[in-house]
């Protein structure tokens, strides 16, 4: 079954090719069949492959399926190969499973769109490239997937291309992530230059052997990879693109900007764990970035009016948690949060999609309200997801977040500030999540007849809600009687997280504190969303600052974009050309001056001859 692994990537790719080339010719139904079916088939193959992998349990190692040689020049040997190990397996499953349900959801959500086939084509392409990213066994192939999903993100954010604002958002996403990618590519260069390979396994073997821990090379390499991760995962300081990326259709937000692509940065760091371990400074940086991001994004999320922007900021914030986890060495916890986050965040987006659909495209929370009765299934699914996001038991979110909070306090790399940030984040998460829930579902209904969503949109919500709950079982805390199945599974490829010795009651205490803080946040949310206060939803002072995402956009506009545009503007006529124009002008001036000497006057010509005679005579006589 593992031999068919390539199909996981190839099926969505084939779906893309079919839709791109033949899309306009196919019926809507056929388009759905191809677009969703390809991902569904990929999911089946992925599950089968995963099952085989786990069952056969090929020892401590990865299963590699070489596809073809990509480039082989001198010492560079890059092949396209798929590599299945515990980590990529997890990612593969998340991508295919969550991806499949989002595709199903899209059938209903995009039903009215004239570019339906194009949409599914892009989505299929995305799934294929994301899988390639996850399964790549070398950094170049990973980069192929990395850039490829960036392209899909760009295409899908700007899917409704007629609105120039969407196009702007799409370009912003591509360009900002590309800034990070420039760092990533330099990191690749550095790794190849000093380790002589770009194969991930080889790098992880050679790096500790050749590079001293904490050395400059390891630190630089890790920092450069981190730059790529920061860009892709919308972490400080490159987080600005993600809120704007909400311009795309909601399934896109769910799939790309919540469940999969934005967590690629986390995946990259986890994938290259052996390298990051060699660079403690960078590890600290990762955790600091994560902590700072989660707090900053949390505040912003709490002030947004647009439901999708709330979720977007929450995504940034949650990825901050993941970074925090990675930074303190809790690899499995970080990845576990990726998994749970994929479920509850995509569910949130899909739910938001239903809401938006219901109220006729309106995204402003303050224009919603009271939708609980009209959309009961959605309400309950959304509630479960919100609970997971807020870290309430018994959801997957609870387990993963508690694990992160735990390691933030008791990992050898932990610091009380990290813990404080994590806990503050928990509070904020509860606050903004339930502010959203309350504003959307509670209170008096503002819409007489909300649109009912089709079944294809509703049942994926239910499945994902189940997923939110089910994932909790994967790593249920031991003190609550669970088993760390997931962590153990991943610990075969990732370094096990170290922990300081802790007392018996410490873990439950932390859990209680987490839940309590979350509940406190919910309570605050309840208070501020009371109808009486809703009217005062106008932004002022700090709230406006948070609403605007801490002014990062403003800063970049002033510090980067404007100067760049100024340079471009000054430069647009190619100043170098002036030099040549000047040369041509001076030649023309020379021509005019000399042409004036050609006066036609015989006397003048004769004078020239006489002068010439004198000059020639002088040269000859003087030199002889």
């Amino acid at each position, binding site marked *: 079954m593992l031999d068919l692994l390539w199909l996981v990537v190839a099926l969505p790719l084939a779906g893309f090719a079919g839709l*791109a080339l033949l899309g*306009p010719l196919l019926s809507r139904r056929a388009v759905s069949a191809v677009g969703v079916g390809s991902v569904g088939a990929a999911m089946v193959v992925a599950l089968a492959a995963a099952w085989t992998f786990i069952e056969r349990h090929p020892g401590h190692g990865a299963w590699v399926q070489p596809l*073809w*040689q*990509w*480039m*082989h*020049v*001198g*010492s*560079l040997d890059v092949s*396209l190969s798929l590599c299945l190990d515990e980590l990529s397996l997890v990612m593969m499953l998340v991508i295919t499973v969550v991806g499949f349900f989002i595709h199903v959801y899209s059938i209903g959500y995009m039903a009215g769109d004239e570019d339906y086939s*194009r949409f599914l084509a892009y989505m299929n392409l995305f799934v294929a490239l994301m899988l390639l990213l996850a399964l790549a066994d070398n950094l*170049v192939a990973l*980069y*192929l997937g*990395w*850039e*490829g999903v960036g*392209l899909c993100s*760009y*295409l899908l954010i*700007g899917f409704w*291309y*007629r*609105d*120039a604002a969407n*196009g702007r958002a*799409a*370009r912003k996403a*591509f*360009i900002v992530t*590309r*800034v990070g*990618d*420039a760092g990533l*590519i*330099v990191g*690749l*260069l*550095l790794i*190849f*230059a000093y380790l002589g390979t770009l194969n991930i396994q080889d790098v992880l073997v050679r790096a500790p052997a050749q590079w001293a821990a904490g050395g400059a090379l390891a630190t630089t390499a890790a920092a450069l990879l981190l730059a790529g991760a920061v860009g892709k995962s919308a972490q400080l300081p490159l987080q600005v693109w993600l809120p704007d990326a909400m311009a795309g259709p909601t399934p896109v937000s769910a799939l790309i900007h919540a469940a999969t692509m934005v967590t690629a940065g986390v995946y990259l760091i986890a994938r290259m764990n052996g390298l990051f371990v060699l660079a403690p400074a960078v590890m600290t940086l990762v955790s600091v970035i994560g902590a700072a991001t989660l707090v900053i994004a949390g505040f912003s999320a709490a002030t947004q009016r647009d439901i999708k922007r709330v979720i977007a900021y929450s995504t940034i914030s949650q990825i901050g948690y993941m970074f925090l986890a990675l930074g303190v060495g809790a690899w499995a916890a970080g990845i576990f949060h990726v998994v749970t986050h994929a479920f509850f965040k995509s569910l949130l987006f899909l739910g938001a999609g239903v809401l938006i659909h219901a109220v006729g495209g309106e995204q402003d929370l303050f224009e919603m309200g009271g939708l609980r009765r009209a959309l009961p299934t959605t309400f309950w699914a959304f509630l479960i997801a919100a609970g997971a996001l807020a870290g309430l038991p018994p959801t997957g979110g609870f387990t993963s977040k508690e694990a992160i909070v735990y390691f933030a306090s008791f990992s050898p790399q932990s610091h009380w500030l990290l813990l404080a940030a994590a806990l503050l984040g928990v509070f904020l998460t509860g606050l903004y999540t339930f502010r959203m829930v309350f504003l959307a579902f509670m209170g008096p209904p503002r819409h007489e007849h909300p649109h009912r969503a089709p079944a294809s949109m509703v049942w994926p919500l239910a499945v994902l809600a189940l997923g939110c709950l089910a994932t909790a079982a994967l790593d249920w805390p031991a003190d609550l009687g669970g088993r760390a199945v997931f962590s153990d599974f991943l610990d075969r490829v990732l370094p096990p997280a170290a922990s300081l010795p802790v007392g018996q009651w410490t873990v439950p205490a932390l859990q209680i504190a987490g839940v309590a803080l979350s509940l406190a946040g919910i309570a605050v949310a309840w208070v501020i969303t009371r109808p009486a206060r809703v009217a005062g939803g106008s932004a002022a002072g700090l709230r406006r600052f948070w609403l605007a995402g801490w002014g990062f956009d403003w800063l970049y506009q002033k510090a980067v974009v404007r100067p*760049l545009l100024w*340079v*471009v*503007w000054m*430069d*647009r006529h*190619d100043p*170098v*050309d002036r*030099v*040549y124009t000047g040369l041509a002008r001076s030649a023309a001036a020379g021509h005019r001056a000399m042409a004036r000497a050609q006066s036609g006057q015989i006397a003048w010509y004769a004078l020239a001859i006489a002068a010439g005679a004198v000059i020639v005579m002088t040269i000859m006589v003087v030199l002889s």
Partner: protein
Amino acid sequence: MMLLCLIIVPLAGGLAALAAARWSDRAARATALAATVAQLALACVVWAVGGGLTLGAGGAAMNVDWTWIPGLGIRFALFVDGLSLLLVLLTALLGVQCVLASWRSIQERVGFFHFNILAALAGVTGVFLARDLFLFYVFWEMMLIPLYFLIRIWGHQRRLYASLKFFIFTQAGGLFLLLGILGLHFVHAANTGESTFDYLRLLGGHMPLQWAMPLMIAFLISFAVKLPVVPVHTWLPDAHTEAPTAGSVQLAGLVLKAGGYGMLRMAVPLFPAAAVQVAPVAMALGVVGIIYGALLALGQRDLKRLVAYSSISHMGFVMLGIFAWNDLAIHGAIIIMLAHGLTTGAMFILVGLLDERLHTRDLGKLGGLWALMPRMGGAAMVLVMGSLGLPGLAGFVGELLVLLGTFKVSVPLAAAGAAGLVLSVIYSLRIMQETFHGPRVTESKLPDLTPREWVIMATLIAGILWMGLWPQRFLDTSQPAVKKLQESAVALTEARR
């Protein structure tokens, strides 16, 4: 003989097209198409026969070596290796596209037009195949005149200015090449007593640095103008912008490659010791080109001009790669040349198609065309992505290899080159945004790609994908040639170890 045929076929085809035009325009087009297809087929045969050829191999069936001007040891000699072969393949492929792309857009003086197209093709092919430096120079200049006419007669509004500028720049550069070739000849003659212009004999001759340096610079100036390298690039935007589509394709796809080829084949291997000294400056100029070209591309409103400046940016990578001079960088430079030929060639054709339909290239007057022409939009998307170096497409392979190679030589330059990738995203996406995306500018119905146009685009895009996903076939072709080049330029190769 096969190599001679590669040159003769387009030349004869050009004359035949000129003659056929008396009969009908259609006949002229058909003749030209037949000639270019024949050349492509011939090139493919050479490729199939001797994939990884090294210089001089292949015997008389392949090569030609006739006495020409014995007094100075000038011979009519052709050779081929993997490097030349790849570029010849590109030439032949783009030749077909040029004829196809002009099928409808050129309605005036059709015979003369195709004569010029094919003559330029023959010239470029000759440049890639010439073994004798004198012959190389002859072909080098020979391709200019047809291109001049293409711009002058069938160009856009500022064709007069652009054609003059193009001609004078490249010819001035060419004259320095002439000087360099002669200097090389005489220094070689003085050292060995052998009067020859044969590349293979001039190669590896020991030359004192005080001679090698000025000669190298003379060669370099000429190639830098063609490539082009900032600050001798300013002919390019004007020429590319004002040329008719086929002219732009030839300029971008072929003429620029001649510059890169010259550097790879001549400038460095003939003067390795001087190249060691020049390399830092040359690489820095390459990086300057990458960034300067990208900045200028950002500032343009004319779509064609934007693409033209992006060429400067891309060619900066070629310069960087050549002077980094390790196997990775050289291969990268070769792949970039090929990729740029396909991508930018296709891009110019695309702009031509837009111009045909909308009669404007002003980005401010375009937009929202996806709804009208989704196929063309899709093609444009692939090309734009190829231009910004998306992995999986041709350009990325080259850029990656160049950067990998450069990093081993100079970390800051490699980093700066990588930074250029960010700028390339900005201008490339702007193309997409302001043509196919954004609000619609016209309500009138515009035809999407016709079958002919579809074939052009599909071929080129297939090539781009092939080279992006499976470049090994190309790398294998050029590998022995590059190895030979490196062995010739021992000094620089050593310096890079």
